[in-house]
């Protein structure tokens, strides 16, 4: 199957070559080892405290993976001039871009799979040692991982767009980090300005800017299912479906824009 996408396969294998997954395995083990330490300071719900810590850590590691893997991909090809070799192949620039994205997506999925499995074992161990108030909802955990992956894919698509324009790997990384920060905050700010207090305090101009930012940048808050996982809260299937479609739509738009820019780019 993957043989039909040689560049995606090469990107995926590149991750193995860089010992990325091995590093991730070690980090995951460290994370699991620190879970009981963090949880032990809790007064009442040790498993919830340890899960809070580990889910936040998984999200941080996921973000670092996107930034570290994604930002180097295209600029590295350009800097090492291997892009010229690719240009001679009978594939379009769009396909090159899409395969690169596919390779990153596979790497992220594999990484999150490893991280999720080891972390899941840690949560299971904690819940056996300190039974939480409510049993751990493993379905919620799986959905948390799936939606965290989708969030990372949205960010990866933004990164591909920036990489298609930039000449160095640093700029796309910083810009994507900024998009992540805005994406995680924009919904909170929008909801705040729509409250009675916000309506009094905030000027109409700022409100318009906030609305503009909300619709332009990706809203990453709906992808965050930590609280539902930690406290085994019920999930809203309709909201999940909408989030899934929204994420998919955002990825498609970003990749189309990246393709437009990249096709017109002059490498000489």
């Amino acid at each position, binding site marked *: 199957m993957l043989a039909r996408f040689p560049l995606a396969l090469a990107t995926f294998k590149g991750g193995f070559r860089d010992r990325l997954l091995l590093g991730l395995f070690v980090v995951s083990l460290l994370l699991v080892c620190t879970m009981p330490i963090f949880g032990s300071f809790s*007064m009442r719900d040790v498993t919830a*405290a340890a899960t809070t810590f580990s889910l936040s850590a998984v999200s941080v590691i996921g973000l670092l993976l996107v930034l570290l893997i994604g930002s180097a991909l295209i600029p590295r090809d350009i800097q090492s001039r291997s892009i010229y070799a690719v240009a001679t192949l009978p594939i379009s620039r769009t396909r090159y871009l899409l395969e690169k994205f596919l390779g990153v997506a596979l790497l992220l999925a594999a990484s999150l799979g490893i991280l999720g499995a080891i972390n899941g074992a840690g949560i299971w161990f904690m819940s056996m040692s300190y039974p939480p108030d409510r049993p751990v909802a493993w379905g919620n955990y799986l959905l948390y991982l799936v939606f965290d992956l989708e969030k990372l894919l949205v960010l990866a698509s933004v990164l591909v767009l920036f990489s298609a324009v930039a000449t160095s790997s640093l700029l796309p990384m910083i810009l994507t980090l900024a998009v992540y920060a805005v994406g995680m905050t924009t919904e909170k700010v929008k909801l705040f300005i729509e409250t009675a207090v916000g309506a009094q305090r905030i000027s109409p101009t700022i409100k318009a800017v906030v609305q503009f930012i909300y619709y332009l940048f990706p809203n990453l808050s709906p992808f965050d299912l930590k609280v539902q996982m930690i406290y085994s809260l019920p999930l809203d299937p309709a909201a999940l479906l909408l989030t899934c479609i929204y994420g998919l739509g955002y990825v498609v738009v970003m990749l189309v824009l990246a393709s437009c820019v990249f096709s017109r780019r002059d490498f000489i």
Partner: protein
Amino acid sequence: MRRLVALFIGLALLVPSLLALTATRKAAPAPERLGYKPSFEVTFFTSLEHRYLLSELLFYDAAFYYGTIVETKQTPDYGTLLRYVDISTRLNPYNIDSYYFGQAILTWDAGMVREMNFIMERGAKKRPWDFYIPFFIGFNDAYFLKDYQSAARYMARAAQLNPKVGYLSNLAGRFYYESNQTEQAIQYLKVVYQGTYSDQVRAGIKTRIEALEAILFLEKAVQRYEKETGRTPQLLSDLVAGGILKGIPPDPYGGTFYYDRSDNRVKTTSKMASHGAAHDRN
């Protein structure tokens, strides 16, 4: 050789400075460690997707600060602690640790009963499966605020959520009749004792239970003395002289029990805590 010299210089700089730095940090006064006065808006908007972790970390800060300052016999900054509990539970209204900490420390030691009840309403709404929060609010209403009607309502809710704990429904019933406060306190503290993993908090609660059980024991002896002699004792030693008791039990807080004829209650010179113990008996 050069590398070795460089390594030696590096270690010579690193090791003593690390030891000195550790000592300096340790010597910093405890309030300095709780120096961060968070604004909810700032913490909320900058926490990105880590508001739940931040909520837990704020609780840890407050708990460590409290643990440190209690050891030094200083009075904790209860205002800041309340702020931490408030912001922690606004960032994550499900965070039971913060409610638990606030209830264990701020209501008993600082008398911040109304403030904690207000904060715990937040938790009662978000954690409809948890019997502890209505139990805490109900207890506070009865024991501190003397609002038995509200107490009964919350305690009945707690009993409904946890039918296994038999005396919750007993408490709910008792509150309607404004029953004996010492027994209420003992039963309440036993529930809290069973529910926490923190050894430090458990030890504190155990001492309080022992003191209250001693008071209950003495109050019952006073009642027996009154029944048998037809008069109230002048001093607790009258109970020993009258053959009701073999001796007066010691106060686990290090004080001495005495009988207050003005309100017919047994009290202790230790007031059962270093701060705000007035709530225990007055």
